[in-house]
C-alpha cells in the first residue's frame, strides 16, 4: 500500500488502510434501495500547512460528489476520488510518449536483449520507437516483455480518496469522513415453520446485508433504514435527503429528525461485511399462534374459463408483540415423515405489532373452481349475469372455499342465488361454500349490475 505514497508534490501522508485500526469508528446507514451513508472516523497525522492525504478502504461505488471530510484544525483545499483501475492496457496507454523497456528473448539461444523504447501509440497495436526504428510491438509473434519504470499517477489497484489539506497545526487528530455509496443493500427475510394442524407459525427473522460496494467494511456499526424513502425518492429528492444527512454526520439532531419518519433498526453488534458477502443477522424469533389457513377464489369480473382454476391457499396470521419490517416470508412445513419442506413464499408488508397479515402461499392442487357465465343479457340500464361456479374438492377432508365476485358496479343487486351471499363492499359479494371430501358443490347466482 505504501507504494502509492511516493511522488506527490508536497508532503504526503498515508492514512491507515483499515479505518477500524486506531481510534476510528466506522458506521454505515443502509437504506434498502441500494444506498448507504458511510461515516468513517480516521486519525490523520498532518504536517503544518498544505499536505496531501490518501485514504484507502473507500467504497468503490462511492458517489464522489457527496464526500465530506472534516476535522479539527484543517480545511480541505481539494479532494479527488481516483479509481482508474490499474491494468496492463492502462499502463501502456499512460506510457504513450514515455520511455519503456522492451526485453526480447532469442528463441534459439534463450538470450535476452533489453532496449529502451518510446511508446508512440497504443491504439490498435502498440507502436514503438527504438532508436531510429519504428516498430509494432510483437509484430512477429516473438515473445517480448515490456518493463515500465513506474505506475502512472491516478492508476490504482484499489479505490482511493486523495485530498489536499491545509492544517493550522501539526500532529495527529481525528477526522470525520462521510459519503454516500451504492452497492450495499439490506432486506428483511423471514423463515416460518408452519404447523397447520395446531395453527402456529414459528417465525425467524433475519436482516440480510449484501455488500457489492467493492470494499470490505470491518467492525462497523450498522443502522438500517426502511420506509417510504425507498420507493418515492427519485435522484433529485434523494440528494436533498442525503445532503442533510451528510451535514449532520457528526451526530447532529438534524439527521436523527430526518430519520424519525422512517423505520430505523440498529444492529446490536458491530458487523464485518466483506465485499461480495451476503450476511444475515438474526433480529427476531417468535412463535405466532392463531394461524389460520383458508381457501379463496376471487372471480375478477363475469367470465367463463375454459379450464378449472385452482383455489388460492391463504395464510392469515395475527401478529403479536413485534413489528415486522417488510420482507420475504418463506414458509416451510413438515411432511408426514417430519422432514421440513418448502411450501411457498410471499412478500410481507410492514406489519405493526398487534395487526393481522394475510399472505398467499400458493394454489391448492385438489381444490378447483370452474367459472361459467351461463348467460349475460343487456338490460335497460345495465347487465344481467347468470353465473355458475362449480367447486371441486379431491381432498379426503371437506373444505370451505371463500368465493368472491367483484365488479357489481352501481346499483348491483342479487336476483337469485343458491347460497346466501354477504356484501363485502358495495361492489363485491362473498360466499362461503362448503365442498364435501371428494365431491362437488355448485353455486349459481344471477346478478344485475347498474350502468
Amino acid at each position, binding site marked *: 500500500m505504501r507504494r502509492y505514497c511516493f511522488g506527490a508534490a508536497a508532503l504526503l501522508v498515508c492514512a491507515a488502510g483499515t479505518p477500524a485500526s486506531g481510534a476510528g469508528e466506522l458506521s454505515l446507514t443502509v437504506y434498502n434501495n441500494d444506498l448507504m451513508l458511510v461515516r468513517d472516523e480516521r486519525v490523520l497525522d498532518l504536517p503544518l500547512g498544505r499536505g496531501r492525504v490518501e485514504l484507502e478502504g473507500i467504497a468503490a461505488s462511492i458517489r464522489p460528489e457527496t464526500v465530506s471530510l472534516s476535522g479539527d484544525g484543517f480545511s480541505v483545499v481539494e479532494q479527488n476520488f481516483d479509481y482508474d483501475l490499474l491494468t496492463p492496457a492502462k499502463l501502456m496507454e499512460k506510457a504513450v510518449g514515455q520511455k519503456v523497456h522492451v526485453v526480447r528473448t532469442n528463441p534459439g539461444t534463450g538470450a535476452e536483449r533489453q532496449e529502451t523504447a518510446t511508446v508512440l501509440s497504443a491504439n490498435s497495436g502498440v507502436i514503438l520507437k527504438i532508436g531510429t526504428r519504428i516498430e509494432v510491438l510483437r509484430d512477429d509473434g516473438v515473445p517480448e516483455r515490456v518493463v515500465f519504470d513506474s505506475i502512472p499517477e491516478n492508476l490504482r489497484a484499489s479505490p482511493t480518496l486523495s485530498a489536499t489539506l491545509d492544517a493550522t497545526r501539526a500532529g495527529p487528530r481525528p477526522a470525520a469522513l462521510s459519503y454516500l455509496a451504492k452497492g450495499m443493500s439490506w432486506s428483511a427475510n423471514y423463515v416460518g415453520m408452519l404447523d397447520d394442524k395446531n395453527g402456529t407459525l414459528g417465525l425467524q427473522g433475519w436482516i440480510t446485508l449484501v455488500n457489492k460496494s467493492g470494499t470490505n467494511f470491518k467492525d462497523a456499526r450498522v443502522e438500517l433504514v426502511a420506509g417510504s424513502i425507498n420507493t418515492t425518492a427519485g435522484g433529485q429528492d434523494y440528494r436533498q435527503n442525503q445532503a442533510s444527512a451528510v451535514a449532520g454526520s457528526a451526530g447532529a439532531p438534524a439527521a436523527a429528525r430526518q430519520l424519525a419518519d422512517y423505520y430505523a433498526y440498529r444492529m446490536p453488534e458491530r458487523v464485518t461485511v466483506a465485499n461480495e*458477502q451476503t*450476511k444475515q*443477522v438474526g433480529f427476531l424469533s417468535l412463535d405466532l399462534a392463531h394461524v389460520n389457513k383458508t381457501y379463496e377464489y376471487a372471480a375478477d369480473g363475469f367470465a367463463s374459463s*375454459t*379450464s378449472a382454476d385452482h383455489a388460492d391457499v391463504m395464510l392469515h396470521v395475527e401478529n403479536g408483540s413485534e413489528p415486522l419490517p417488510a420482507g420475504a416470508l418463506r414458509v416451510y412445513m413438515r411432511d408426514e415423515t417430519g422432514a*421440513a419442506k418448502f411450501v*411457498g413464499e410471499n412478500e410481507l408488508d410492514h406489519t405493526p405489532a398487534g395487526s393481522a397479515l394475510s399472505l398467499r402461499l400458493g394454489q391448492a392442487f385438489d381444490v378447483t373452481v370452474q367459472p361459467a357465465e351461463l348467460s349475460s343479457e343487456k338490460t335497460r340500464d345495465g347487465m344481467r349475469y347468470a353465473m355458475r361456479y362449480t367447486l371441486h374438492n379431491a381432498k379426503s377432508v371437506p373444505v370451505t372455499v371463500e368465493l368472491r365476485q367483484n365488479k357489481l358496479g352501481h346499483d348491483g343487486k342479487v336476483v337469485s342465488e343458491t347460497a346466501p351471499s354477504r356484501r363485502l363492499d358495495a361492489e363485491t359479494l362473498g360466499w362461503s361454500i362448503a365442498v364435501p371430501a*371428494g365431491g362437488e358443490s355448485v353455486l349459481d347466482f344471477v346478478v344485475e349490475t347498474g350502468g
Partner: protein
Amino acid sequence: MKRLAAAVLALAFVLTGARADVVSQAPDGVSVTFYYGGKHGSTLADLSVWSFDYFGFVSETRVVDLPAGESTIRFRGVASSLVPESVRVEGLPKDAIEQNFDYDLLSPGSLLDRSIGRHVHLVRTDPKTGRQTRQDAIVRAASGGAVIDIGGKLEAPQCGGPPERLEFDEVPAGLTATPTFSIRANVAAAGRYTLKLTYIAMGMGWSASYVARIHPDGRTLDLLGWITLANDGDTSFHDAPVDVVAGNLDTNEWDHAVPIDTNMPPPQCWPLEDWEATLKREAWLRRLAEVRQVGVYSSSPVTAVSSDFDARPLGDYKLYSLPERTTVAAHQTKQVRFLERRDVAFERMYAGEVAIDPDRPSEADQPVIVEYRMKNERADGLGVPLPAGTISLQDGEGRFIGEHTLDDDTPVGAPVVADAGGALDVFLHRRLVASQKMGDPRDKRVRDTFEITVRNGKPVAIPFALYQELWGYEGARIVAEDRPHGMDRGLPMWSFNLAPEETARLRYTVEYVPP
C-alpha cells in the same frame, strides 16, 4: 490446484479472536426435494440458476462438535446455488446469531486478487535450456490483468508472451475451495450437536411427462408417467433420498442464487495485432454459453426403473418420494417412472369451436380437433393426482400421433383432455342465416342465427362436440336453438354422434351487443 486445496484444508481449524471456528467439511446426510414453480409454459430447457420457475430444496444433516460459548460454524460443500435468505438451521439450543454466505471461492482469479500488495514469485523458463529463474515480485493489480512489481519495475506477466508463471507462498485467508455457509452460534454446553440445514437451491427442477399408449380397441389406453429431474447446478447430491413436489407454489421472482464468478476475467493487455487470440477467446466464450444452454440435455438421461409410487399430501400440494436413494450429479438429467396405469378408459372426441366474428359471418372448413378425453376417476382406471406436464400419444402400433401440454395440475375427479391436433375427414361449416336488430333504435342488441353443418367423412361413427365462444361480447347469450346445449369448459356446448358419412345440422340464435 490440488496443492492449494490442501493448503485450504490446513487452514480449516483456526481461531479468530476468542471465537472458536468449527468446520463441517461436508454434509453427513443430504436429501433433496425438486419443485416446479408452477409457472407453466416454461420447460426444463429454461432451467438455470437464474430461473425462478424451478428450484430445489436441500436438507442436510451435519454433526459438529461445539465448544461452550460462541463459535462460528462453517458449513463447507453446500450447494453453490444456495439462496442465503432461505437457510434455516435447526438443532441448536439457541438460535443462530448471524449467518454468512461467502462465495470467496479459491480460483486463479481470486488468488491473484487477494494477493495484491503481497510478495509472490515470478518464474521464467528459458525456452532453449529449460532453466528456470525465480524472482521476487509484488502484485500491484489483478482484476484487469496482473501487474507486478519487480524491484521497482513494472511488468504485465500475462501480456508478454514468454513462458512465465506466478508462484504464491500461501492461500490468502478466507478463500475456500467450496462454497461455504457459516453461522455464529452460542451454546451453553460443549458437545456433539446434530444440525439440520435446510435451504432453497436454484438451478434444479423437475417436470412430469406422460406417454399414453392407445390400445387397438380404441377405448382404453395405458398411461405411463415419468418424473424428469434436472440438476443444472454445480453441486452433486450423492446417495440422497429424493422427493418431488407438485403444485403451484408462490415464489419470488427475485429469488436467486448468489452469482459465483470463478472465471478470471481475460487480462486487459495492451492491444496486439493478434486477432486469432481474440477470436479464439470469443469462440471459447460462445462455446461456454452453448454448453450452459444445452447443459440439461448434454448428459444422457439415467433411467431408474420403478413401479408406481403414490403421492402423499404436503399441505395443499403433492409430494412424491422416490422409492430408493439416488445420486443426482451436477448437470445431470434423470428420469424415474412414477405412474403406470393399464386399461384406462378414454373417449376420442371430435371438437369444433366457433366464435362470433362480424367480419366473417360465414366460414367453411372450420378446424375440428381430435381430443383424447379421460376422466381422472378410479372407475375409469385412473384416479390419481396428475401433475402438469406433457403427454405424448401413441397409437396401437406405437406410432407417435401427437403431443399436448397439460398445463395445469389435474386433481382426482377432473377431466384430462389431450389435444392430438386437427382431424381429417370431419368437416365443419358455419353460416349466418339471419341477423336482426331488436326494433327499438336505442336498443343496440342484435340476434344472429347460425347454421352449423358437420359432415363425418369417416367410415366409422364419431362423437362430436361444438363449442360456441361468447367471450368479448357484452350480453351474449343463446336465445333459441334446435337442440338443447349444455355447459362445458365454461362455454355453451352441443354434442351428438355422427354415423359414418352422416351430415348433421344445428341451428341456434345468439343475442349480443356488437362493439
